[in-house]
């Protein structure tokens, strides 16, 4: 039998894991009539166009009352946290468009 010459080592793990905060989802809506919708455009090509079309459709077909529109400063930057907070308070629901 060969002698086991392997040695044990402890390695510092160079990787990280995501820290996922728990959250509770908002109540689902049953009806869009009279509701206010928040729209977030990621500033990629065609994001604005699809959201504008969608806003018209939501108003005409589902009776959505009003929209709040936000265009991100850059596709790779987060939406303005103040706008997100205000949308959370003032809108009944939100739609995010990812263009290209």
């Amino acid at each position: 039998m060969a002698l086991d010459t392997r040695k044990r080592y402890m390695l510092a793990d160079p990787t990280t894991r995501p820290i996922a905060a728990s959250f509770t989802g908002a109540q689902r809506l049953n009806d869009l009539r009279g509701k206010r919708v928040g729209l977030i455009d990621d500033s990629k090509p065609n994001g604005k166009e699809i959201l504008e079309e969608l806003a018209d459709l939501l108003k005409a077909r589902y009776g959505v009352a009003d929209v709040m529109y936000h265009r991100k400063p850059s596709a790779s930057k987060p939406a303005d946290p103040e706008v997100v907070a205000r949308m959370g308070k003032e809108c009944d629901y939100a739609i995010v468009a990812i263009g290209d």
Partner: protein
Amino acid sequence: MTSGLKDVVQAEWEDVVEAIEKCYELGWTDGLPVVPPTTERVQQFLDYADRPANEVLGAVPERRREITVDKVAANAVMAGCLPEYFPVVLAATEAMLDPVFNLIGPSSSLGGAGILAVINGPVIRELDINCRNNLFGPGNRANSTIGRSIRLILMNACASVPGLFDRSILGHPGKFSYCIAENETETHWNPLHVERGFPRGTSAVTVFACEGPRQVRAASKPEAILTCVADVASSLGTSMANTGSVGDTSAILRQGQIAMVVAGTSDVWDGWSKEDVRQYLQPRVRRPVADLKRVEVIEGDVEPEDEERFIPLVPSADDILVVFGGGQEGPTAALIPSWGAKVSSTAVTKAIRPPAG
């Protein structure tokens, strides 16, 4: 002792080749062999910098990651750094995690950015960081391993794994290692970090998300050199000479920052300051609407007046980073365009904290 390190992996091996292969198995490498990050070696780095293992340097909020000192140390060990390099790697990490740098952009984008680190101050001499010939090339441990640490930190600690969160279409060789120093002692120019508000005599690192360096061969007069550099910087096909992915479209093009590394001897630039260089370049880095229409960056037919309507590609003179370095055999420069729009990522400079004691 390994008191400060709680996130550990047990491994066993017989010889050095097995040790290296183990790190490949664990998925921790950039494709090249790494130094196994044994807890003893990582602890040496922590002790040298005198920073607690669990100190949070910043976060990548979009990926729910917090980056702590021990993770940076483990990756610096793997890259082949000496403990003395660790304060530089820490400062570079802090700079990358600054919200203005917006790491999520350059570390995930199709654009394939490398992250250039420019080192300034006494640390250049103390650590023998190369600032002369072969500035972007191989051959110097400090440059190679500090630059490589940045990529390993991105891959391992920030989850910018190629094919996962790193979606580069092409990328470039600077993604392996991209670290230079300024030759501060052979120029009359102010060092980059001093121009960016840091005291002379201190050390600092500037990080810049960018494309690869394009070498520019030029004549020996400042105006001629800068005309060549402006021409290269005004190329069609850079991220700056493009549209899309920015909220504010009033400038028409994205516009970005550029870095210019100036080689050759300093006497060529007698009578010129870095500010003079920036002021000369900025208005000349531009492209006519006609060209931008021809390559479909701007929609529409080319009108006669479009030939004379120019759009600047760099928003202000301050968005030009000027660095003196490289060989001195003849006037040559490197021009490096930013990965993206300035609003998507802006160069950041952070102080290198000298070790305690």
